[in-house]
């Protein structure tokens, strides 16, 4: 249980050095803890992780009050999430790059360039959407692997290597858009990726039915996976949350999902961008926490030398992480181009810094080995919420930058301070 003794007494037997190599566990303390105390312990142990969520809730509540509820309106939340999409997917992959102690500065212009290529393929070459998207994604992987080559194979510091590729792709973007200027895309199914919503089937009391169903499935999926997880843990006799605590956790998270679904269903429902974002997080979360390769990434970030001596192929991991960064750059380019319904000469400018900021707000550590992809998404949403809320309040752009900078600094300070306390 949670009140396991923190202190571990290591005292030698007085009579001699009879070290018996046998099991000695006292897992179960019979001390009852109240729910409140358990909450406090859980909070205390996870303050770093929960801090971000609490910050997000505080930001949302503050803006909701200051805008008389306008901030939390269906339309605004829908817009906010859509506008976070192309940075969020970058932030997810960037988190892994930072986890293995590298950085990728090229992602912004790579996204911009690949978005332009998508536009060219769709408009000038007449390639259908269902081919364009996979082509762009593969190109993204190729670019990412090229960065990986510079970093892992040749050994150039990632900052310099990706600075070089950033310049190259900035030039390439200008090159392909120079003649035509902005390329307008008139393909509806492509543009739907950035602007469209999932079909509604029918409306129930003005609510978007399919979205409600998606939300419901989400809740059921969450509840079932938590319950089966707890069951198997109990089977192996591991520590789990107490029953009332577990149930309240399920209820709270389900309520949050339900509320978000309800808000969104009141407008146009889930957008395609949100679905893509969600899919990216789910896939990356699974990849990083449940697979061998995912764990190897964290091992390499934690101590590259020890990882190498543990039989982990550090080069391969570096390639995989930069490859995934390239893939997400391509996706980001598609989302952004579809959202604007056009490719511009300046697309992608400063995306890399927004993504890095989101990753840091999301709790990744520059020292390597620490950082969750779920955090990156929250980080991206925090940053998007700030922009959105301040826009609603009519805060000038100069102040907006300063406040976002302050929030980034605060997030990193919080991270450093809580880490020291541990």
């Amino acid at each position, binding site marked *: 249980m949670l009140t*396991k*003794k*923190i*202190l*571990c007494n*290591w*005292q*030698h*037997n*007085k*009579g*001699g*050095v009879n*070290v018996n*190599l*046998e*099991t*000695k*566990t006292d897992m179960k303390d019979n001390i009852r803890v109240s729910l409140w105390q358990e909450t406090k312990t859980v909070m205390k142990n996870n303050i770093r992780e929960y801090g971000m969520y609490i910050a997000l809730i505080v930001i949302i509540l503050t803006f909701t009050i200051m805008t008389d509820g306008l901030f939390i309106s269906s339309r605004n939340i829908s817009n906010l999430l859509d506008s976070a999409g192309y940075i969020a997917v970058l932030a997810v992959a960037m988190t892994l790059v930072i986890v293995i102690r590298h950085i990728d500065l090229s992602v912004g212009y790579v996204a911009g360039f690949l978005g332009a290529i998508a536009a060219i393929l769709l408009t000038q070459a007449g390639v259908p959407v269902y081919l364009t998207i996979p082509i762009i994604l593969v190109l993204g992987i190729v670019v990412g692997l090229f960065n990986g080559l510079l970093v892992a194979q040749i050994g150039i510091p990632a900052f310099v290597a990706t600075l070089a590729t950033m310049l190259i792709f900035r030039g390439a973007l200008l090159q392909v858009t120079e003649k035509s200027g902005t390329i307008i895309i008139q393909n509806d199914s492509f543009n739907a990726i950035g602007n469209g919503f999932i079909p509604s089937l029918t409306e129930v009391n003005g609510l978007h039915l399919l979205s409600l169903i998606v939300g419901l499935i989400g809740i059921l999926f969450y509840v079932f996976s938590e319950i089966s997880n707890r069951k*198997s*843990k109990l*089977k*192996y006799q*591991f*520590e789990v949350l107490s029953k009332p605590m577990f149930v309240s956790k399920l209820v709270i998270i389900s309520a949050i999902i339900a509320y978000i679904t309800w808000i969104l269903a009141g407008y146009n429902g889930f957008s395609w961008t949100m679905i893509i974002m969600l899919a990216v997080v789910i896939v990356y979360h699974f990849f990083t926490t*449940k*697979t*061998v*390769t995912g*764990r*190897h990434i*964290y*091992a390499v970030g*934690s*101590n590259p*030398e*020890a*990882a*190498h*001596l*543990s*039989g*982990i*192929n550090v080069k391969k991991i570096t390639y995989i992480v930069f490859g995934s960064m390239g893939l997400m750059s391509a996706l980001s380019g598609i989302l952004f181009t579809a959202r604007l319904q056009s490719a511009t000469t300046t697309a992608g400018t400063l995306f890399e810094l927004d993504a890095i900021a989101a990753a840091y707000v999301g709790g990744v550590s520059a*020292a390597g*080995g*620490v950082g969750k992809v779920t955090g990156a998404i929250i980080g991206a949403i925090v940053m998007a919420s700030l922009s959105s809320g301040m826009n609603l309040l009519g805060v000038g752009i100069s102040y907006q930058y300063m406040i976002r900078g302050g929030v980034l600094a605060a997030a990193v300070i919080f991270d450093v301070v809580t880490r020291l306390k*541990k």
Partner: protein
Amino acid sequence: MGLTPYGSDPSKGGQNMSEYILEMDGITKEFTGVKALSDVNFKVEKGEIHCLIGENGAGKSTLMKVLSGVYPYGTYEGDIIFEEEIQQFHKISDSVKTGIVIIYQELALFPDLTVYENIFTGNEVKQGGMINWNQTIVESRKLLEKVKLDVNPETLVKDLSVGKRQLIEIAKALSKDVKLLILDEPTAALNEDDSENLLNLLKELREQGITCIMISHKLKEVISIADKATVLRDGRTICTLDASKGEISENIIIKNMVGREIEDIYPKRQKAIKDETILELKNWSAYDPQLGRYVVKDINLKVNKGEIVGIAGLMGSGRTELALSIFGNARKYKLSGEMLINGQAQTLKHTSEAIASGIAYVTEDRKGDGLFLLQDIKNNITTANLKGIAKSGIINQNEEIKVAESYKNSLQIKAPSLEQLAGNLSGGNQQKVSLGKWLFVAPKLLILDEPTRGIDVGAKFEIYTVMNKLIEDGLSIIMISSELGEVLGMSDRVYVMAQTELKGELDIEDANQENIMQLATQ
């Protein structure tokens, strides 16, 4: 035994108090409810070498951190009296100003700066606000002479051996007019020659009136150098031993350290050697292109099933490099010669291939390249063999906890839970985590590089016991060690390395400290 219990010192009762340069009185230091030090008394006389001894976690480092101001005045109870004045150190520089300088085990030098820059960093020779570099070099020459180090002060520190760097740390301390020099395991990373140099230097500094506190795990050194020795155990002062009364001997020290008699710290095992060669090297050489020289040369070596093969030798003799060249050529040397695993010639190109063919390597430097300090015990144990608990690339996390739990229990890793970060464990427990990680890959040949460096006697014994158990289970072990006692106590056969070559092979019956040392210093 005639030991002097603390507090009553009959022989010195009538003498003047002023002969103590340092008195630490009733020091108590708590970390969130855990008492790291409780009512510790520690007195050092002027001009003596006073050794501070105790198992890991006994409170030696904490005591020294209290003394040096790392834990500022007010965060502990008790008094520090230095030169008859109660001191209140709020930060490290306060204690340095008073003349107390600590040299930590992990040296705090700048590898890319020159010797003279290192010596005077933080204590620059200034003239009108500018640094006088010429004077700095002149001064550093004098200091280098004092510590008997014959190097050009303009050499970069990274080009010096560990032993020489240690001397530079001392020169740095001397530049600050040190009265009390504290050394935290100064010889842990040194070979026997350098260690002896260092100890001789300390004796000379004693002649010059510098008082010295030395934390050490090497009892032989303590015996050879200490005037007094204070033993700490579980955050308490156990006793202070006086060399002039003949109280400083291995038996007495160990008894007080662990609170028990140790007849033999090397547990016996049944001979289990089979006539089956696990590993054989023929004319094995490794050339390091970065260093531009051979690091391992013409090695012919054999390891049988169920055998502990000791590799003795001084640091820098190529022992670790030999291990790394066997273990999948982890440092990308240019290899020549032949390696036979189970009688079959093999070329291992990566550490993962070495693991796949049944070789495991527990590194010398646990913190540097052994463990993932920011990850928990569980992750550390399973990292090298995640495939063993995964199905088509997806990890069975319950299985993982079970595996980690079983190693935690069988190796007796002392930690409140599997979620404890490896960085927060004591040296002995960290070493057990490393061992667990490598046992989980189910190796046939385990290479242990300095398996008990920097860990206390109790944990050492536990690790030796594990080694014996593994041998009984049919594993083979190559044990690289600088501790002759360990080599002699645990090995079935001993190879001695010196200057990248194998200088000799000794059966354990014929091996003794003298003939090993003789081969190692060839």
